[in-house]
């Protein structure tokens, strides 16, 4: 009897253990279409208690002194180490090309994706106030004399130079995103910073990437960085996992509270930006906080009642909140599409697939022109971005700046708006893909049959791929939807030799100073072929030497007419060869605000030219200085 009981106990513990192990793996983020990396939570060091910063008491925060956000993150935050990309603390730190998060750490310039210009923050001078030398191999800017760290010491060029040096030497990836373009960052004197380009044939590899660096990467405190490296013995992993409680910052907000559910920053009332050379005052909210919700739907229901002020969630039919429910909710634009679209989620054809037909541009184009993009827009985006009728497809996103970069008339005949079933059938018939015994089109007795994939649970993407599959069936091509877990999906998608997916979906790059070049390169360049763990682009392994040649010429070209010619040629090739095709335009930042407590957020009709960048990123942080209480 006793042994029986013991056996039962042992078996139950085994099952419980298995249960816990299985639950630990499911850490995907629904709706979050950003590739992991910056936001991936690290759970290496779970033994230490959660950092509580200055262990502020969050129950005491009056609602009218705090600005709350949601939709930034899915897992709990780890700490305050701005040097590490393992903190999963996007309220405080996020360094992206469309404008870094600036409440705590600051960049020399604030990027404004509305006008594609750089507004000075730590840097002195005017808009786009940096300077290049004659051959654009060196970029120089000076720092404001008023700029100070929270410990009172000045922000100097030595901080900027050491941030670069430490990043190259102590970041786990060795700063691989930047070292191909930037050779070094040096201090010419205490306040002058010089960025030196990687030079090829006497020209910079891509001078725009140096501009992008100004608005994307923080300047960190040299003394703090030295202490950080020192106390971790220079070990990259241990530096990345250091919680950085003592982080020295230059921004208007510092750590206040952190637990598994929320992160709160509090205003530093001695912030240097009160100086007349910068904002001239303090930002309005005393606290800013980001609360984690279980799902988009849970976050939305809190946003609706006004407990969250700024939501970065994609909210379906958000316009109903003000048109039908009369809530004080608004988006940047008053009418559809409501947001500034910057991204172009794209379906890639896998050139490595052994399936018959995918190597034929006619099949690829036939599939692409038969897709009902209006249906995708309606279902996956609830019409919150422009359609391909509004902005004809190319390699450019819908921003005016990018749209002006190619000759529309030259490629108009190649652009398609979709749902052209007859056209697609005619193309396939003419190319000899006849309907065979299987009921589907065949070539040499083998039917055209593809697997259409995206991560499971990403409902808007699933809806989009569902429409793609439906289009294939209409033109006699068998399509099987195959939605798989994100953890599996990402490994397959970034693998060079995968044959699992035939047509699969991923985002492109959005707004940045180095666009549209970076996005086009990521979509078309064969330099990413045969690389495993390739997160940059060309996931379908497309290769075209003519494209590669043009891509090499563009960054070194400064003549606008010549650039237009290159870009037009690339669009022409892209729309003819169709190695991939955009499914929709999509906002990078959803930026929906509830003005129950605060008002003064940016809107398209206020003439302030502040980008809708969640009120704390890039030049969008100007919002914080314009907020007033409603009540």
């Amino acid at each position, binding site marked *: 009897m006793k042994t*029986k009981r013991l056996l*039962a106990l042992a*078996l*139950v513990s085994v*099952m419980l253990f*298995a*249960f816990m192990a*299985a639950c630990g793996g*499911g850490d995907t983020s*629904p709706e979050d279409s950003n590739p992991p990396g910056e936001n991936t939570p690290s759970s290496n060091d779970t033994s230490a208690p959660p950092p509580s910063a200055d262990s502020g008491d969050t129950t005491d925060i009056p609602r009218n002194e705090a600005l709350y956000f949601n939709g930034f993150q899915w897992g709990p935050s780890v700490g305050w180490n701005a040097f590490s990309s393992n903190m999963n603390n996007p309220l405080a730190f996020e360094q992206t090309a469309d404008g870094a998060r600036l409440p705590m750490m600051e960049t020399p310039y604030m990027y404004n994706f509305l006008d594609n210009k750089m507004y000075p923050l730590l840097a002195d001078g005017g808009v786009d106030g940096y300077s290049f030398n004659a051959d654009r191999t060196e970029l120089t800017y000076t720092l404001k004399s008023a700029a100070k760290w929270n410990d009172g010491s000045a922000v100097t060029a030595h901080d900027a130079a050491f941030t670069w040096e430490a990043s190259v030497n102590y970041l786990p990836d060795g700063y691989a995103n930047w070292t191909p373009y930037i050779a070094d960052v040096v201090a010419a004197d205490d306040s002058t910073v010089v960025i030196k380009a990687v030079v090829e044939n006497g020209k910079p590899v891509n001078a725009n990437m140096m501009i992008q660096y100004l608005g994307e990467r923080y300047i960190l405190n040299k003394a703090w960085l030295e202490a950080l490296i020192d106390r971790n013995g220079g070990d990259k992993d241990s530096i990345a996992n250091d919680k950085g409680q003592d982080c020295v910052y230059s921004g208007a907000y510092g750590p206040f509270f952190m637990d598994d559910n929320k992160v709160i920053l509090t205003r530093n009332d001695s912030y240097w930006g009160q100086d007349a050379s910068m904002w001239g005052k303090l930002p309005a909210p005393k606290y800013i906080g980001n609360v984690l919700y279980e*799902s*988009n*739907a849970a976050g*939305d*229901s809190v946003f*609706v009642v006004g407990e969250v002020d700024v939501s970065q969630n994609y*909210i*379906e*039919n958000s316009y*109903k*909140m*003000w*048109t*039908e*429910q*009369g*809530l*004080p*909710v*608004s988006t940047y634009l*008053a009418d559809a599409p409501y947001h500034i679209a910057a991204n172009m989620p794209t379906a890639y054809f896998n050139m490595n697939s052994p399936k018959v037909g995918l190597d034929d541009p006619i099949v690829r184009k036939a599939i692409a022109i038969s897709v009902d993009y*209006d*249906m995708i827009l*309606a*279902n996956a985006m*609830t*019409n919150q971005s422009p359609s391909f009728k509004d902005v004809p497809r190319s390699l450019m996103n819908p921003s005016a700046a990018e749209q002006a970069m190619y000759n529309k008339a030259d490629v108009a005949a190649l652009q398609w708006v979709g749902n052209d079933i007859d056209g697609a059938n005619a193309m396939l018939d003419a190319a000899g893909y006849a309907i065979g015994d299987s009921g589907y089109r065949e070539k040499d007795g083998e039917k055209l049959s593809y697997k259409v994939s995206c991560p*499971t*649970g990403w*409902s808007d993407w*699933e*809806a989009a791929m*569902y*429409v793609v*599959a*439906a289009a294939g069936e209409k033109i006699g091509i068998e399509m099987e*939807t*195959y*939605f*798989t*877990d994100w953890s599996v999906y990402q490994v397959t998608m970034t693998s060079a030799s995968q044959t699992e997916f035939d047509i699969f979906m991923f985002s492109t790059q959005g707004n940045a100073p180095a666009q549209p070049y970076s996005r086009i390169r990521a979509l078309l360049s064969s330099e990413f072929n045969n690389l495993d763990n390739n997160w940059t682009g060309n996931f379908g392994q497309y290769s075209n030497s003519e494209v590669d040649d043009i891509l090499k010429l563009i960054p070194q070209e400064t003549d606008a007419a010549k650039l237009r010619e290159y870009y037009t040629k690339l669009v022409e090739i892209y729309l003819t060869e169709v190695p991939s095709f955009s499914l929709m335009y999509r906002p990078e930042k959803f930026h929906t*605000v509830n*003005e129950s407590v605060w*008002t003064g*957020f940016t*809107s398209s*009709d*206020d003439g302030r030219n502040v980008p809708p960048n969640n009120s704390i990123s890039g030049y969008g942080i100007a919002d914080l200085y314009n907020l007033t209480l*409603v009540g």
Partner: protein
Amino acid sequence: MKNTLRQVFRPGKFLAGFIIFAFILLLTVLYPLFNPGDPLAMIGLNNFTKPGTYVSVYDSLNVNRTFVFKLPDAAEKRIGSKLFPEDRETIKDYLTRLGLPEDSIDIDDTHDLMALWWNNYDPANQIGKTIAERRAYTALDNKLAGIFVSEDLEVLQYDPGTDEYVRKKMVTENDYVNVGDVANTIWLPLGTDNFGADMLKKLVSAIGTSLLIGLIAGVVATMIGLLLGLLAGYLGGIADDVIMFFTNLFTVIPGFILLILISYSIDQSRRGATTVAIVIGLTSWVWTTRSVRAQVISLRNRDHVNLSKLSGHSLPRIVVGDILPYIASYVVMAFILQISSAILAEAGLSMLGLGPKTTDTATLGLVMEWSIMKSAAHISGAWWAYYPVIIVIALISFSLNLMNTGLDQIFNPQLRD
């Protein structure tokens, strides 16, 4: 047999449950006959369109026969459809904020109110405090433009040959067309869901699939439970110990957690409705086993069983012929409950994203998952996307439970009247 049936249908509980269930079942059989086609077809380019009859604007303009009705309240209704009572309040608020004396504004006098609005509203002078407020005034002004216009409307058609617009017809405010003459109308009793699919059609198809899942899971669970219970109860000894060991093991682990684990370990592309049904069946046999065993133990030493043993009958014959008939009514009742709980389990699994794959079929759980978990139908105010599903799930399990208690009243000697 006839007597048993009469007995079964006599108590109100069973009959009520049976009628509800039969109605739902009939709906799934008959509705597709009247409204054939793919229930998942995405017919709408908008998600969550509200219930109602939709008339093609294009076709209604193209209907040749028009009828003239001079209805006294037509103009009033037309204005009422644009100017709601709350809009009148908004106008009053705006005007008083501008400084107009409150008693000079009569919100019931539509013409005066609109005249005041058009005289005083200035798009350049935005007095709203928030973006939302300012935009609401602009939207109201746009909406009310031309509210009193009753001139005839001219319909022009573009002629690509001459690159001109040719006058086609005039439409007056008293023109009506018969809905029957309009080529394209569509009736959506429950609107559309997030995919733009006909909600009622999808719901009916989902009920069918969910009932099937319930049936398969119920059969699997009952068969396993019955077999193990009969063996354990009749054989006793080591066989009983071994079977009960596993049964107890599964009893202490919540079945739903096992279900989640098993579903999670099956890749989504392989999770069809049948697979999910079998998985549910495989995790919910425990209580059937326990109760069947208990009943069999009490039957095992009855005289007729011993007689059968002495006559040298084989084990299967004794079990099937002498024991099973005595517990058959209990097994049927357990089976009904299994169906009900399997439908609920599928709904629960699907809400967690572990249900059948979404693109093949609709199930009640999947419809709920898409409308509530993935598309926030609640925030869009689309009650039709989830309330009917919830009600149907409740009705199905309510009717099955009613039938179960009804049967219990007849077959349970302690409850029998």
